[in-house]
């Protein structure tokens, strides 16, 4: 592979296919979802002054940045991206992040959880999970850079609290979400206005499912970090999850790692993101696997979301992604 990211453009063949769509067929699912996302991104760029896009190198954020480039082409993406780095990221995901930022020509801001731990503003949790610790650096970065709109890759199918989320969702001056008092969202008329100190979170992928994201990755030929595809890896099974032993996952006395063929469905914090047994080595195989899955993406791979029935709701209220 000569470049990390191949040209993600549709080929001339797909463009021709689009122009010759028989007039009896409405736009298909992916066309409809893509057009909705482009419309959302363009509304925010048209109405707000200082947007930022959350970007971790994970598949949803990669798709979102791809959509941002499409929305504004041939002009460059006119806003920076922000990564809230837990300090426990997979090295290949960080390398991918940097290559992607280079490819799209966007400015990268990093808010580092490690910095907060080092100077005592945050303390490590007993369970070692750092995902809930991301909220403070995120809110500080928003305040420091005076961002008025924060694009996030959250999808409503991920979690029951996210199912209640608006596409353009207000956060008060503390960054808090009030799920019981949200603005009604009518037609495709988004209200992006806010009072000083408030900001909006914007979710262009709200109506996408995990399967839609993968189908779109296939259609657009979007490159992802390699750990989304099946590979051999030494793992240890803990609480029903396959964890990769290393600096952030210490082996317990009774644990013996074994090499298995696995892939990651999400690529978050290494301490709490599990792999799944999989032989899906390419995007088509992943689509087939996702279509036949019996467990949700977060249920399979995120220890932090198992904390309680309302773990995500509680984190979101405080200002989490």
């Amino acid at each position, binding site marked *: 592979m000569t470049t990390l990211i191949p040209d993600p453009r549709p080929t001339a063949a797909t463009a021709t296919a689009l122009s010759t769509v028989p007039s009896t067929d409405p736009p298909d699912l992916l066309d409809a979802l893509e057009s909705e996302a482009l419309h959302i991104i363009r509304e925010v760029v048209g109405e707000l002054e200082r947007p930022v896009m959350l970007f971790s190198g994970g598949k949803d954020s990669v798709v979102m940045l791809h959509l941002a480039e499409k929305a504004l*082409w041939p002009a460059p993406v006119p806003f920076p991206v922000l990564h809230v780095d837990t300090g426990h990221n997979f090295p290949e995901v960080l390398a991918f992040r940097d290559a992607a930022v280079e490819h799209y020509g966007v400015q990268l801001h990093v808010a580092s959880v490690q910095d907060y731990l080092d100077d005592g503003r945050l303390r490590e949790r007993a369970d070692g999970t750092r995902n809930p610790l991301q909220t403070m650096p995120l809110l500080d970065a928003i305040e420091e850079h005076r961002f008025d709109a924060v694009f996030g890759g959250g999808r409503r199918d991920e979690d029951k609290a996210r199912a209640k989320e608006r596409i353009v969702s207000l956060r008060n001056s503390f960054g808090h979400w009030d799920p019981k008092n949200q603005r009604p969202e009518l037609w495709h008329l988004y209200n992006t206005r806010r009072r000083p100190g408030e900001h909006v979170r914007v979710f262009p992928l709200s109506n996408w499912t995990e399967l839609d994201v993968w189908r779109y990755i296939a259609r657009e030929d979007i490159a992802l970090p390699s750990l989304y595809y099946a590979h051999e890896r030494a793992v240890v099974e803990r609480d029903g999850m396959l964890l990769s032993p290393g600096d952030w996952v210490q082996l317990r006395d009774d644990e013996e790692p074994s090499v298995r063929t696995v892939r990651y469905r999400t690529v978050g914090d290494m301490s709490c993101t599990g792999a799944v047994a999989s032989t899906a080595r390419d995007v088509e195989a992943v689509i087939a696997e996702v279509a036949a899955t019996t467990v949700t993406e977060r249920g399979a791979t995120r220890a932090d979301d198992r904390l309680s029935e309302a773990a995500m709701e509680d984190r979101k209220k405080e200002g989490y992604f």
Partner: protein
Amino acid sequence: MSTTTSTIAPTTTPTLLRLATAGSVDDGKSTLIGRLLHDTKSVLADQLAAVEDASRRRGWTGELAELALLTDGLRAEREQGITIDVAYRYFATAERSYVLADTPGHVQYTRNTVTGASTADVVVVLVDARNGVVEQTRRHLAVASLLRVPHVVVALNKIDLVEDPLQVHEQVTSQLAEVADALSLPVPPVVPLSALRGDNVVHAAGSTPWYTGPTLLALLESLPAARDLRNDAFRMPVQLVIRPQHGARDAAHIDYRGYAGLITSGAIEVGDRVVVAGSGRATTVAGIDLDRSSVQRAEAGLSVTVRLSEDVDLSRGDLLAAGDVPAPSRSFSAVLCWLSESPLRPGARVLIKHGTSTVQAKVGAVRDRLDISTLEHAPAEQAELNDLVRVDLDLAQALPLESYSVSREGGAFIVIDPQDATTLAAGMVDVPVRS
């Protein structure tokens, strides 16, 4: 724990259908949604395990988990056993992917149903077979009529709990025909079903041998995706002017100038004459770009960037149109659905967002109020939360308004409080006055 497999064929891309459900208290709406998700295999094992666990803790003794719990999103909803806010659910078959707006039946009724109906292709109205057509049913149909939702489908739930289901089905069907007629709606199909038992939701039921129609899901699968907007006149509110200048990453695009937007109705082809509504200036489509590739033709529902052959004064907030181009209006009458806790004060200065433009407006006198069950007009002088009222509005700048009865996209607007930025009302243009 039951295991599930998906019914999705991964090689084909289905179409998207947006549903909204409307139900009254205790008519089994959450159970019906849970049943749709469960029987289309859209509930995965860990979600089901969580619900089974919660069902047991709440003392549910039924055979299946309490399906209604699948749809409760927030802690307060689970604690109080009610639905507070619109939630969105996703399920899919080989044919279609569904986005379902689950709108609560009793808290903030109008606000939530209007929100759900505003983007829906189909409203599924629940009727409890034991109660038949009630006041709430009339309201659901009236909201669907007012918002011009393309399709209405009635789910006649709890059919297993009535003595003479055939007679109930006939009676409800004929009552609904009358209500629909009064509201100028097509007569909705009525599917007798039991959400709890799963009869006629996804799987046909042996318990209703007299019913020869489709199951609820089969009916949804067969509906046309949406009102086909592609044969209407071309409309595209301009969102952005794309002009990279020296920021262009490719030197070939330094002089590029394109107008980005979502085609809300109709279609355009390269070479078509289009008009900037407002100024009335005509120009020609030189190119249609979807990302780096150019296409000859694009249709309603697609986000594109249009290049024009002559320079015209055109920016965000303008409407690019063809056919019967709407003339700019400075004053108009409209129906407002008032969504705010603070009442509407005649004379209030507000902001209106229509298409991609936001302008200052002044609300005139309240003319009358619409009865939410009949849509008949009654005298009124003010509007409070959840009221539907007809008002006159004056605009600081003319807008190319269309009557909502002609165009859902060209006649919809929201009213925003300029002080605290909240969304005050959903608006539908009644009669634009040409200025």
